[in-house]
């Protein structure tokens, strides 16, 4: 951990930059810059390019296709990705189910699932939350009853992000009702094409069908799709939740967004003949956000440095989640404030591919309120910020 990079690291930075410059598809980049919503094909196409380069899964163990990078290299790569607006892999396969499979799955499962995840042949989605189990995840009710060599699954999962695209879903299911709630949960992989599964969109307040409810009615799942031992699923899920925290703070993305904000502020009329860059209050807010991101960046580097000397990622990572989402939401607010009146029109069409009409607002101004609305989710999902504070109280402060 150092304030300045080594020569090798600088070289790696340059390699990453050149790769992105050459290989990140220009049409996807243009979409990102114009805030056009990305489709499944965009994600998959880009992910396959990374796969070809061998950079699809920086955090996986090398034996399964990971890059073997140092923490600093991962950091540099994430920063370059953010700089080009290159989308990160959809987390559910690459970052969520894969670590569970390579850590707790059997050899058969590893062979069957990991290569397709690495190559982005299969789209995964998540089946954790249920309508009545928000932050209290372990109270989930979806049941899996063993019948011969199958489980029969019944129940409802919710907050299923991009499940409309998914080929497979990983689920926490209840396999024993007679024990403490955490002890009767199993981790099950389910093919979305299995009869009895229905996906129904939930519209968020920004008007997008980003999440879904997934209904299971007598869905037959082969026993070989069980990860690890029956009733041990909670342990696997929990380990997953404290691992894989790289870039959880979203520092590279926040940095790039702040740079862009500063640039746009210099082009935005303040109504008095100057630009928003002349507005001391707005300038001060940008500076405070930049300073917060700097603090967060070094909090993350300190956490990474601790991991790199062999310490397990501790409850400190809760800070990264809390502060990372708070600062991202603050940046959303600043974009909305900058757009002023132009944040009000609701014109989702102009952010969908193929729109050719007259646009409202410049530089995606009309998306700023929608982004603000949508991103309120950040402090709710992935273990709400309240849950993170509970973790800090219990695990760090001993309260």
């Amino acid at each position, binding site marked *: 951990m150092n304030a300045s990079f080594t020569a090798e690291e600088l070289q790696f930075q340059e390699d990453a930059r050149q790769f992105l410059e050459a290989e990140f598809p220009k049409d996807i980049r243009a979409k990102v810059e114009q805030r056009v919503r990305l489709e499944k094909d965009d994600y998959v196409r880009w992910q396959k390019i990374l796969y070809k380069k061998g950079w699809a899964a920086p955090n996986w163990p090398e034996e399964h296709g990971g890059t073997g990078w140092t923490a600093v290299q991962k950091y540099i790569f994430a920063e370059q990705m953010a700089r080009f607006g290159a989308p990160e892999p959809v987390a559910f396969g690459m970052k969520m189910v894969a670590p569970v499979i390579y850590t707790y799955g059997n050899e058969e499962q590893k062979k069957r699932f990991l290569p397709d995840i690495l190559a982005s042949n299969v789209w995964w989605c998540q089946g954790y*939350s249920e309508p*009545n189990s928000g932050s209290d995840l372990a109270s989930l009710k979806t049941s899996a009853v063993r019948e011969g060599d199958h489980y029969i699954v019944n129940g409802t999962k919710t907050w299923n992000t991009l499940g409309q695209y998914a080929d497979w879903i990983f689920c926490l299911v209840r396999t024993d009702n007679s024990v403490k709630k955490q002890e009767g949960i199993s981790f099950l992989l389910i093919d979305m094409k299995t009869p009895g599964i229905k996906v129904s969109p939930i519209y968020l*307040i920004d008007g997008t069908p980003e999440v879904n409810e997934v209904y299971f009615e007598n869905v037959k799942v082969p026993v070989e799709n069980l990860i690890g031992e029956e009733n041990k699923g909670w342990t696997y899920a929990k380990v997953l939740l404290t691992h894989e925290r790289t870039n959880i703070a979203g520092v590279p993305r926040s940095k790039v967004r702040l740079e862009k904000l500063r640039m746009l502020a210099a082009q935005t*009329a303040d109504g008095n003949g100057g630009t928003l860059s002349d507005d001391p209050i707005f300038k001060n807010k940008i500076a405070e956000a930049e300073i917060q991101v700097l603090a967060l960046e070094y909090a993350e580097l300190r956490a990474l440095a601790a991991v790199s000397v062999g310490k397990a990622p501790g409850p400190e990572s809760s800070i990264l989640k809390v502060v990372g989402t708070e600062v991202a939401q603050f940046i959303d607010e600043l974009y909305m404030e900058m757009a*002023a009146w132009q944040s009000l*029109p609701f014109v989702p069409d102009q952010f969908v591919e193929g729109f050719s009409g007259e646009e409202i607002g410049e530089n995606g101004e009309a998306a700023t309120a929608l982004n603000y609305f949508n991103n*309120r*989710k950040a402090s709710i999902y992935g273990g709400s910020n309240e849950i993170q504070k509970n973790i800090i109280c219990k695990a760090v402060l001993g309260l």
Partner: protein
Amino acid sequence: MLQDSVQKFVHRHYSFDDRNAIIDSGSGYSEQCWQLFAELGWLTVPFREDDGGFGGLATDMMVLMEEFGKAMVVEPFVPTAVLGGGLIAALGSAQHKEQHLVPLMEGKLQLGAALYEASGRYNLASVGTTAKRDGDHYVVSGSKILVLNGEAAQQLLVSVRTQGAERDEHGISVVLIDAASAGVHKKAYTTVDGHRAAQISFTDVRVPVANCLGAEGEALSALRRVVDRATLCVSAEAVGALDMLLQKTVEYSKTRKQFGTAIGTFQALQHRMADMFIECQLARSIVVMAAMKLDSDLTEQEKARAVSAAKSRVGRAIRKVGQEAVQLHGGIGITNELDVGHLFKRVTGIETLFGNSDFHTARFASL
């Protein structure tokens, strides 16, 4: 009482589902409701008795708007009656009033006020749209953003520059333009909070000189006064909506169970709801302050200061109460299924209308 009257109306005609259907309808507001507004006399509230109105008191508008806020009423009361009608009442001749205020109060006329431009942000004096004299007509050219009710408006009140350079305080006039005039181009849309608005451009639109309201070039101070009244109205609307957000959150916290107990029993969440209550009470108090001062004989400057104080403080309450309401609801709070998300969107929209908190704090400090 106005309050009872709105509450009865809402109970009968304005459930959450009713409202969703209205927003999805072609016009984006309910003509049936609008006629009820007229019948119930609400459209007369913003006008003085000598203009045929109910009295024009800000405190009455406050009561009305607060109830509208609770039910998230989308009908164009503010654009038509407060802004459009307000400009005519403030600047217009007896003939202008006769011609427009009467049908307005009868529910037969929709208005829109086209006052803001892309490069002007919240500055009403930043008028680049020009009106050049040509005989007994003006030729109007320019472009306005976010004209509330711009789609339905039959007549537009447009701030134009008849003299001087952009941002000069003098040389600004308000003209009435028939929305059907040649050269008027509307780009209409729904706003993020379910209202209707339009971006409107004017290309060599010919407007009779008689359509200029008041003395040519001297409209700015009336413009500011009228917009201040509209600002008070949406602030009061926000107060109603914020109260509803608090109420919904408290109710939800009493029924939603996590870890085997209602989340309303968690003290950390309790104190946050207490903070929301405090914010709601301060927002309500400062809007009462502004409404009373608007109805008093204080100076124009003191009235403007009061409105800016209110809008600034309400904006902070919006940010805080809105975000907390959503956060405490969890995932369900950011879906379109529940009214909470819609209340959140509406108050967020209000935060921007007529200038956000930073704008009004600075205006307060400079007055």
